[in-house]
């Protein structure tokens, strides 16, 4: 748990950066066409949310991110559990994973477009494909790293196979899985924006791209600020979940 002082310092640093941004904009060190000050960006943000469809774009991005992330999480944890629980499966599947994992998710966008067209299904597929890796690899690692003694305890108690998975392996792998969930959420946000830009789906990616093309830099920055906020709130929510779920790790 961070102290109040650290938190205050964090806010101060952020405020200083915003002030610096305002000074640079006011001095016109960068042309106002490209760089609005925080004042103009904030006005554009409020106006966009109140009078334009920025709110709908925000919801679109959140929806794309969460749907892809959930699909990736469910598939990643289930597959990871299957692979991680068996050393044989790990040996068989590891080479394939090593080949697929470093593949940039953006590289499969053309493939996904060919298969799904410029549709929400394409975005869902690409986001899920990109976000599944941290989850999958973390879950495999978590399941493979379960203390062997606990499996003996389970054998001595004659726990059923599902009970071993849900009462021993899954909770034991939970710290790894949560780390994977967090990384996966970041990837999901990035890919949601990329898909919105490329496929013209309703979302902040699309808003940012169009604003840039029309030299509406204040609108562009309003979108970027919202994207930052989405990432921040997502990480915060996972932090809170982690603190609750892993309370037993506190000394």
């Amino acid at each position, binding site marked *: 748990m961070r102290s109040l002082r650290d938190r205050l310092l964090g806010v101060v640093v952020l405020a200083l950066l915003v002030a610096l941004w305002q000074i640079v904009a006011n001095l016109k060190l960068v042309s106002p066409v490209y760089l609005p000050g925080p004042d103009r960006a904030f006005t554009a943000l409020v106006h966009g949310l109140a009078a334009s469809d920025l709110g709908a774009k925000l919801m679109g991005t959140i929806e794309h991110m969460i749907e892809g992330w959930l699909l990736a999480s469910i598939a990643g944890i289930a597959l990871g559990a299957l692979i991680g629980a068996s050393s044989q499966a790990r040996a068989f599947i590891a080479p394939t994973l090593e080949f697929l994992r470093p593949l940039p998710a953006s590289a499969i966008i053309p493939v996904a477009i060919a298969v799904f067209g410029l549709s929400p299904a394409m975005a869902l597929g690409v986001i899920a494909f990109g976000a599944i890796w941290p989850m999958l690899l973390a879950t495999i690692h978590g399941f493979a790293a379960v203390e062997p*003694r*606990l499996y*003996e*305890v389970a054998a*001595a*108690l*004659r726990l059923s196979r599902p*009970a071993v998975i849900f009462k021993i392996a899954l909770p034991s792998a939970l710290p790894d899985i949560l780390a994977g969930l967090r990384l996966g959420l970041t990837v999901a946000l990035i890919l949601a924006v990329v898909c919105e830009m490329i496929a013209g789906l309703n979302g902040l990616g699309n808003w940012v791209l169009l604003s840039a093309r029309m030299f509406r830099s204040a609108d562009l920055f309003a979108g970027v600020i919202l994207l930052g906020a989405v990432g921040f709130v997502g990480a915060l929510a996972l932090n809170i979940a982690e603190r609750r779920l892993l309370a*037993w790790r506190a000394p």
Partner: protein
Amino acid sequence: MTAETATKELGAARLAGADARRGGAGRDALIEFAGVSLAFAGKTVLDKIDLSIAKGEIVCIVGPSGCGKTTALRLASGLLAPSAGAIAFNGAPLQGPRRDVAIVFQDYGKALLPWRTAAGNVSLALEAAGTPRKARPQRIGALLAKVGLPNHADKYPSQMSGGMQQRLQIARCLAQEPIALMMDEPFGALDAMTRQELQDELLDIAAASGATIFFVTHDLEEAIYLGDRVIGLLPHPGRVGIELKIDLPRPRDQVATREAAQFLRLRRELYDFIKSAER
């Protein structure tokens, strides 16, 4: 069990248990090894072990490292199957771990679920046995009280000392309502005071429940103090080298028993055996 009242309550049961125990090898065998051998990767770990443990008996296994005493315990608990020979439990062939046989591991820190509280860890055994949800809290409370942890139900293992963690593991094992306890150097990692406390609590539990105990230790005095019988193994390959019947009166006492002439004589005999075995 540290409370005096509990000890008093157990007094009668302890005497009854001790009487029953006197019968020794003549009574019904609970666990029987007949020519049991075990080989790992071509290396013989245990060679033709014959061993009979009577119901209610406390048998301690000692021996130099590498003699296969932990392996013998794993065979007796069904975690391992012999390469040759047969193991019978209650007259029937032993086919893997049994719910009425509880195993107390030495590394209590690894044998507990760190994400569950003390109550949750005890609950695991009850869940495995299919105890109804409603009946669990009361049983858990009684078991934690029995091992001297009545006020620690909500603590996580990481918040407990080594002695408390081992007590907790014993509580989980008792939740299995075992007829036999398999204990693999359970007190080896604890400080001397805690070890003696737990030895006496174990004897109280054994007397009250009549459970058979198979106890592996490297501490010769502990073996004599606890056991009805002490079996010394020889290494390379592991085989029975000595068998001592311990006729020290029960209940045993940390001071008086350890000062008894017979205790010292047995200790000398066992010590000489270990010395010669290591040579």
